[in-house]
C-alpha cells in the first residue's frame, strides 16, 4: 500500500475532496459506460429495481458493519498511540524531576541529556515517524542517559531512595518509548483494504443496475458514492497514526521541552 502514502502529504481538505471525487467520478463514469450493458442482465426481470434494492440493502448491512469496525479499529490505533505518546512524555517529565534532585554535576548532566532526547524527539524523530521511518538516534540519547545514571553512586539513604525511584521511572519511560516506536508502522492490514475497496466497487456496481431517469440516477448514486468516499477517507486519514494531518502530534513533548528550557 506504500504507493498510496503520498495522499498523506496532501492537505486534509484536498485528500477528502479527492477521495469523494474519485468515488463519484468512478460511479458516474460507470453509469455512462456500463449501465446499458449491466442492465441487460436484469432487463427482462419483473420488479428488477426491488430485487436490486433488496440485495443492495443486505449487502450494505455487511459492508456497513465492516466499514464501521475498521473505522473503530483505525480510531483505536490512533487513540492508543496518542495515549502512549502522552504517557511517554509524562514518564520523561517525572524522570526529569527525579534527576533534578541529584547533586550537580550529575543532576545537571542527566537533565541535559533528557532535554536533548526531548528536543531530538520533537525536531528529528517526529518528521521521520511521519514518513513511516522508525527513528533510531534516540537510542543513543537513551544509552547516554543510562550510562550517566548508572555512574551515580548514592551516598545517603535519601539518595538511595531517589536513585531507585529514578531507575524505576526510567524503565517506565523505556517501555512507553518502545511502544511509540512499535506504533510507527501501525496500520490496517492491506488485506482489509482490499476487502473495503472490493466492497465499494460492488456497492457502486449494484447502484448501476437500478432503472431510473438518468439525471436522478446520477444524483442519487453520486450521493451514495460521495458518502462511501467520505467513509473510506475517514478510515484512511485515521490509519497510520503518525502520518498526515489527522495524526498524533509531538505536543506533549513540546510542552515538556518548553518547561525544561524555561526552568
Amino acid at each position, binding site marked *: 500500500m506504500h504507493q498510496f502514502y503520498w495522499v498523506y*502529504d496532501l492537505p486534509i481538505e484536498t485528500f477528502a475532496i479527492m477521495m469523494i471525487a474519485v468515488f463519484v467520478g468512478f460511479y458516474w463514469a460507470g453509469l455512462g459506460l456500463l449501465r*446499458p450493458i449491466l442492465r*441487460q442482465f436484469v432487463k427482462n426481470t419483473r420488479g428488477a429495481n426491488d430485487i436490486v434494492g433488496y440485495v443492495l440493502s443486505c449487502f450494505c448491512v455487511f459492508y456497513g458493519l465492516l466499514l464501521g469496525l475498521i473505522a473503530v479499529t483505525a480510531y483505536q490505533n490512533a487513540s492508543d498511540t496518542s495515549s502512549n505518546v502522552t504517557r511517554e512524555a509524562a514518564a520523561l517529565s517525572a524522570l526529569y524531576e527525579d534527576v533534578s534532585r541529584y547533586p550537580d554535576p550529575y543532576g545537571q548532566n542527566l537533565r541535559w541529556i533528557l532535554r536533548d532526547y526531548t528536543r531530538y524527539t520533537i525536531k528529528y524523530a517526529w518528521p521521520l515517524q511521519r514518513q513511516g521511518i522508525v527513528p533510531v538516534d534516540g537510542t543513543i540519547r537513551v544509552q*547516554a542517559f543510562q550510562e550517566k545514571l548508572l555512574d551515580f553512586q548514592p551516598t545517603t539513604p535519601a539518595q538511595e531512595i531517589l536513585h531507585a525511584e529514578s531507575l524505576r521511572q526510567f524503565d517506565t519511560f523505556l517501555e512507553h518509548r518502545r511502544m511509540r516506536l512499535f506504533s510507527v508502522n501501525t496500520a490496517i492490514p492491506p488485506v482489509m483494504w482490499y476487502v473495503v475497496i472490493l466492497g465499494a466497487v460492488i456497492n457502486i456496481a449494484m447502484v448501476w443496475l437500478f432503472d431510473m431517469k438518468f439525471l436522478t440516477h446520477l444524483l442519487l448514486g453520486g450521493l451514495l458514492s460521495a458518502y462511501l468516499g467520505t467513509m473510506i477517507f475517514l478510515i484512511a486519514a485515521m490509519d497510520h497514526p503518525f502520518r498526515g494531518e489527522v495524526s498524533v502530534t509531538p505536543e506533549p513533548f513540546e510542552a515538556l521541552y518548553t518547561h525544561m528550557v524555561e*526552568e
Partner: protein
Amino acid sequence: MGQLTVAQRTRGVSRRDFGRHAGAAATLAAAQAFAPFMFVGCRPTRLPAGRQPIRVGLLHSQTGTMAISETSLRDVELFAFEQINASGGLLGRQIEVWGPDPKSRTDLYPKRARELLDWGAAALFGCWTSSSRKAVVPVVEERDRLLFYPVQYEGNESSAHVVYGGLVPNQQILPVIDWFSSAAGGGRKKIFLLGSDYIFPRTANFVAKKYMAAQGMRPAGEMYLPLGHRDFGPLVNLIQASGAECVLSTINGDSNIGLFQALAAARIDPEKLPVLSTSIAEDELRNLLPEQVSGHLAASCYFQSLPTEANRRWVEDFRHEFGHDRVTSDPLEPQWGLVHLWRSAVERAGSLDTEAVRAAMRDGLEFAGPGGLVRLDPKTQHCSRYFRLGRIRTDRQFDIVYQSDAPIDPDPYPQFAFPGWSCDWTQGGITRGPEVPIDGDI
C-alpha cells in the same frame, strides 16, 4: 396508463441518447476526478535530484568519557544547521544531518566517518581529541571530503582535507608565556609545565620550551601524568619546591578535579602561584568546585562572558534553544564559525565538490562570529583568532583579563620548534623539514 417495464424503457434508449449520456457522464467524472489535482496540485513524495537535501555528518561521541564535552559541540552544530535551514537552506536545498556515536573510542571514529561518507555526507564536522582527529584524517583524505575540526590542538599537522578552527600553540601557548613575562602577568618567568600524558600536552610543551629557550628562559619543571590521574598532592609539593611562579597546565579531563583539590588543600594562593589551564572552559568548570578553582586562569579564544552585543545575542539564542543553564565555551564558538565558513565556501563555489569548496576557501573567507572576526588562512586552512586570557570567577564564568589587539594568524609549524617545516595549500602543500623528536632535548 400502466408503468413501463424495464425492458420497454431500455428499448426506448437510442444509441444517440446513450452516446450523449455517456459523454456527459465521462466529462463530469473526469472533471471531478482531476479537479483537485489541477487546482491544488499534489506533492510528489520524492524530490527531484537537485532538491535532495545536502547531507552533513557530525562525528561526536555521545556516550563514554568525551560525551559531555562533545554533545555540546554537536548541539551547536545542530543549532547552526537548523538556522541555515530556517533561512532557506544552502544552494536552495535543506541540510540533513546525522551523527552516529563513536562512543569515545578512537578506533570507532574512522569507522563512523566511513559510515557517514557512505551515507553521502558532503562534509564532516567533529572530533575532539587529537587521537580521534588523526584517526579520521586518512579516511577523509582517501574519500576526498573535508573535516571541520574546532578544538585547540598542538599544531605540527596540516591536511588539505581538514579545516582547523581552534587555536594552535602560537595562538595560545606562546601568548601565555608572553603575558606571564609581562608586567601585567607579574613578570613571571619561572613557569612549571604540567600536562596529561598524551600528544597535545607533550607537543604544546615542546613548543613552549623551544619558545622559552629562544627568550632565554627555562621551565621551572615539567611533569606528565596519565589521563584520569587524581592524586596531585605530591605534585603540588614538587611545584612549590621548584620555585615556580606560575603553572602552565595542559591537564585534561577529570584529572583537573584532583589537581585543583590538591592546590586548595595546600592553600595555594592563585595570586602567588596561578595555574593557567589550556583545557578548561565553561563546560569543564561545572565539574569543579568554585572555591577551589576561582582566581586561577585559562587561555582561550572565546569566553561566554565576552561583553559584545554579538556574543550576548548568540548566548541568549543558544540558551533559549537548549536551556538557560547551558553554557557556551571555546570549542563551541569556533565550531559555529566553521559551519558558517563552510556555508560561505559552498555558496561561493556553488557546489559541494570538495575541490571547488577548497578553491573557494583559498580566496580567503571571513566570518564575524560571537568571539569576533575569524579569518580562514588559505595557506594553512587554520583560522586567525583572538587570544584571550580569563580569570575564573566563583560563578563558573571568566573575567577576561587580557585580549590580543587583533586576531593572531595561525602557524602550525613555528620555525623555532619545527625548522624547515611549513605548509601552503595554495602552492603545493607541506614543505617537509628534518624530523623533530618531540621528547628530544631542547
